[in-house]
């Protein structure tokens, strides 16, 4: 990868805003004319020549996007004074890309938002000293891909002109983004077709004993697939507890887990929450513990 691409790839790993975080793993840029940008977008690191690539993925992979977003350098900047009600008139509540400048007109951060006005207001409140003027570009038909592409075009323009990413967009910088990226879910096995040398039950036992808090949920912690699992993840996130999560619906890495775990814990449903190696219960129990304060006690060392 050449320099701009390397920088871009790093920027892509940094979260854009607390509400929208693109999960693009890799991309490549070919040719760039001012208005038409060609992207090869891969949402998973999947080789297109692999027999498993569906035609849908192949179609998505080479996308030509022509949109009417103005260049960053040619967009007007609006001062942000922080007065009450200012945001209502001056900034749109639409989705799009925005760029924040400090009092010396240095570009600090480029973000995307489902509501530009709301994001600008939030930034001004949280970081008044860094938020002096804002440029924005509304994106029509703002699906996640369109928004991310708009962000990319401004980011690339910036990188081409100064050779680096705005300070707020550097990987690991959480000044502008409230929540850092979530921990990945744990996998019990290396894969479905790998022979286990240790029975699954023992793997479960090790897991819950080696980690203080473990939750077995339906879906991933970033997108649970059931209301009860979602509730448990929500409660733990809010409590600020450090926990490990395991997706019981993952047939590739956790095949057979559902049945084995039901027997192991003598508990027939999911989610299941383990603390210090012991089953604490499911969503109901965790909810009532959160309500009556016993949850805080449980996690206090």
């Amino acid at each position, binding site marked *: 990868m050449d320099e701009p691409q390397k920088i871009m790839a790093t920027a892509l790993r940094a979260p854009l805003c607390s509400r929208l975080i693109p999960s693009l793993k890799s991309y490549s840029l070919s040719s760039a004319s001012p208005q038409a940008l060609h992207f090869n977008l891969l949402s998973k690191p999947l080789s297109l020549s692999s027999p498993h690539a569906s035609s849908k993925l192949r179609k998505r992979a080479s996308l030509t996007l022509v949109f009417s977003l103005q260049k960053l350098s040619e967009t007007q900047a609006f001062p942000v004074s922080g007065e009450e009600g200012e945001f209502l008139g001056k900034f749109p509540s639409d989705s799009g890309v925005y760029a924040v400048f400090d009092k010396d007109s240095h570009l600090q951060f480029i973000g995307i938002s489902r509501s530009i006005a709301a994001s600008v207001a939030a930034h001004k409140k949280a970081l008044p000293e860094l938020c002096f003027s804002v440029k924005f570009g509304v994106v029509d038909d703002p699906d996640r891909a369109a928004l991310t592409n708009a962000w990319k075009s401004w980011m690339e323009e910036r990188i081409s002109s100064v050779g680096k990413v705005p300070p707020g967009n550097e990987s690991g910088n959480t000044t502008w983004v409230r929540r850092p990226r979530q921990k990945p879910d744990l996998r019990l096995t290396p894969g479905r077709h790998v022979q286990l040398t240790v029975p699954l039950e023992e793997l479960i036992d090790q897991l819950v004993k080696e980690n203080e808090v473990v939750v077995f949920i339906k879906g991933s912690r970033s997108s649970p697939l059931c209301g009860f699992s979602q509730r448990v993840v929500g409660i733990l996130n809010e409590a600020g507890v450090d926990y490990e999560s395991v997706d019981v619906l993952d047939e590739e890495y956790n095949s057979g887990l559902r049945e084995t775990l039901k027997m192991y814990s003598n508990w027939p*449903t999911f989610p299941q929450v383990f603390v210090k190696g012991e089953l604490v219960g499911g969503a*109901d129990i965790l909810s009532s513990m959160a309500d009556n304060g016993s949850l805080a006690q449980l996690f206090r060392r």
Partner: protein
Amino acid sequence: MASRANAMLSRASRMKQKLQTALEASVLEIEDVSYQHAGHAGVKGDATETHFNVKIVSPKFEGQSLVKRHRLVYDLLTEELQSGLHALSIVAKTPQEVGRS
């Protein structure tokens, strides 16, 4: 009890039968909320009689942690859980606890 006769009853009725006597419940409310979960992961095909809300007030819960109380209920409903019952929202209280509120 003849299992054939049982099969004619709805799941809710079967659950009531199994829980009522075993727990000497003074309050036993069972509500089928399967429609709320139709189409969510793990519910294959028919989404009827899969998710229930259960409220029980029973002296047998005395001195038992929440986990133990729920386990008691689950154990009584093993057959249902093996035949399509997916999830239960359980409220399990003792008569004293209800009296206090």
